[in-house]
């Protein structure tokens, strides 16, 4: 099982490869014109900050807290479920 600590020891390229293979896509948002994509892996989350969408990642932010998920949850359209 991959832990958050073990994930953080990987290089960014290895982290992105692992996310591609095993990550679960949660959502996407735009901050100051740049795209961020949120993935879940095991019991933690990784937000990929893109310089160029799905091509050049400038930063990966890993966390366990659910607080950073709020902007993604707000963007989910639940109207059709009501």
């Amino acid at each position, binding site marked *: 099982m991959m832990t958050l600590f073990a994930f953080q020891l990987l290089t960014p390229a290895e982290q*992105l*490869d692992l996310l*591609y*293979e095993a990550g679960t*896509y949660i959502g996407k948002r735009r901050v100051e014109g740049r795209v961020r*994509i949120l993935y879940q892996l095991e019991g933690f989350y990784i937000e990929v900050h893109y310089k160029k969408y799905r091509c050049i990642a400038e930063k990966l932010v890993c966390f366990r807290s659910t607080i950073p998920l709020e902007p993604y949850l707000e963007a989910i359209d639940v109207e059709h479920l009501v």
Partner: protein
Amino acid sequence: MTHSITPKNIVLYADDDPDDLQLVQEAFAQFARDVEVVTASDGGQALSYLEALSDLDPLPCLIILDVNMPVVDGKQVLRRLRTMERFAEVPVVLFTTSSQPADQGFAEKHGAGFITKPLQFKQMELITDQFIAHCAEEIRKKIRRQMQ
């Protein structure tokens, strides 16, 4: 929906995410001499485009479908295409954020490819090759000849 007047090999790509539409259009730009990417922003629009093709119009050499789309989703489009005699054999790829075995199984069951959307450039390069590999053989050869 976007397409030019010049007749080329058509790749039809349906996705509601404008960033993904642009990403795939850029990936195919290197084959612009042979391939034109026609885009649709949902599954309904993709089906309307296909249903409007006359018997004289060439069929797309590849149809790329996002899974989660409004109006008609990618899986519904694929199911519909496989019941339409004219499109039953057209190569289709589900291009999705999912890497779930169930979605892969669905694609396999309906004779389609399954490609997870990339997270970095080197994956996008591999995916472009996979798209080409799914194209009809004649087109594939033509594109690879151009690349040599």
